[in-house]
């Protein structure tokens, strides 16, 4: 079974791909922080953030299809907010949509969620699609992120699909024996599957640890870092942090 990795397209070549991941990490984080703290009525600021991101997508040569598809992950959250719209407190005028009446206040909340989540998600897509995940982890380590955190992320990146495949095989084996999952008492089976998946993963963890020991592991993972900070990195970090900030101040 094949799965699309988190960092699909991170092996392309573009100015954005070549940047030191530390600069991208700082730059995109700054963009997100500026964006989510912007008051929702500063519409030109949001247009500027989006414009910056679209320019970066062009620069990175990522396929638009890929970016748009990944951006859809924000949609469910936006829809949940939309579903609760009729229940928001009144104010800011009201708009009638057939039998439902929406308040201007509610619509502003929806705009707030939609704009900020979309821009933040695009920033994360830009980061993860232009940086190989292992390099991102190294960058985090370089920036003194706790080793336990990066180790967990690294093993997750390596094993998540191994475990997903294992689960899919279990599901096939279950369904091949006529399981339909129609009655409540059949839910027990799901509990057993989760328990058995946990045990298997636990045992795999022990075997992986033995394999690490066998190659001389002594509690420390050594790694070499191939990037360096230069003019391009400084320029990018300034662009990603200062441009949104300036746009926001001008709009306010």
């Amino acid at each position, binding site marked *: 079974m094949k799965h699309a990795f988190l960092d699909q397209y991170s092996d392309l070549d573009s100015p954005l791909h070549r940047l030191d991941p530390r600069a991208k990490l700082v730059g995109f984080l700054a963009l997100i922080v500026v964006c989510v703290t912007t008051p929702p009525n500063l519409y030109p600021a949001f247009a500027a953030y989006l414009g910056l991101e679209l320019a970066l997508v062009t620069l990175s040569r990522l396929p638009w299809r890929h970016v748009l598809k990944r951006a859809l992950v924000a949609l469910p959250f936006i829809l949940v907010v939309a579903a609760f719209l009729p229940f928001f407190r009144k104010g800011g005028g009201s708009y009638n949509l057939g039998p439902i009446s929406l308040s201007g206040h509610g619509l502003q909340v929806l705009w707030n969620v939609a704009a900020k989540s979309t821009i933040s998600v695009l920033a994360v897509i830009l980061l993860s699609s232009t940086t190989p995940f*292992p390099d991102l982890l190294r960058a985090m380590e370089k920036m003194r992120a706790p080793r336990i955190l990066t180790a967990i992320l690294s093993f997750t990146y390596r094993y998540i699909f191994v475990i997903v495949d294992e689960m899919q095989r279990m599901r096939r084996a279950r369904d091949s024996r006529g399981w339909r999952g129609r009655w409540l008492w059949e839910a027990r089976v799901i509990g057993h599957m989760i328990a058995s998946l946990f045990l298997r993963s636990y045992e795999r963890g022990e*075997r992986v640890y033995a394999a690490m020991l066998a190659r001389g592991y002594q509690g420390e993972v050594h790694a070499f870092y191939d990037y360096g900070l230069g003019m391009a990195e400084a320029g990018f970090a300034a662009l990603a942090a200062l441009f949104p900030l300036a746009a926001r101040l001008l709009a306010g």
Partner: protein
Amino acid sequence: MHHRPAVEIRDLHYAYPDGTVALRGVNLLVEEGESVGIVGPNGAGKSTLLLHLNGILTGRGEIRIFGLPVEKKNLQEIRRRVGLVFQDPDDQLFSPTVYDDVAFGPMNMGLSRQEVAAAVDRALREVGLAGLEKRSAYHLSFGQKKRAAIATVLSMNPDLLVLDEPSSNLDPRARREFSELLQGMRITKIVVTHDLPFVFENCERVVVMDGGKVVADGEVFSILSDEEILKAHGLELPYGFYPAPRRG
């Protein structure tokens, strides 16, 4: 050069923490340059024995690897000299990329950056995977994963290669390639397997284990053509397979 065996094991006993007794007095001597197959039914203690060869498990008894007793102060040196390859390559390949996995051992040995790069390059070329450095192990075929697993220990320049079930789940072509790869490597080898034809092909000597002990030990043909030994320890040759003495 003075002579010393690659592996010396005397009266090794081991019980797992849950009380299961796995080894009941194992004696084994492997000379440098030998290629030894270890066979036996499931639960015979084969894999437990392997984990003793580099001190992952420590039982009661005496083990020496190239003359060094397996004890804490020698562990780093022993783990460099013994390349242990686990059965499931997904256990062996735990890093985000193939390169990182092959570099893991050399880095733990404290090699410089250039030395690590050279060791990785050499190991990947030896197993025929040059060019796949940046891949995730997840995206390799099973045969490639098995070879990558070998590369992760070859990069440490071991003197003894220990393989747990190297031929399991390989299709015939991958199995053939793997067999040729092993035969091309001129170091001491210990192979644990259920695949008796694989032992015929790759080993001169076979050790039969059962019930936590070595129950037979000798030249491959004489042991594996002895139906009584095979039958007594739950082994059998594949249907239609007739052993012939080794040539040369």
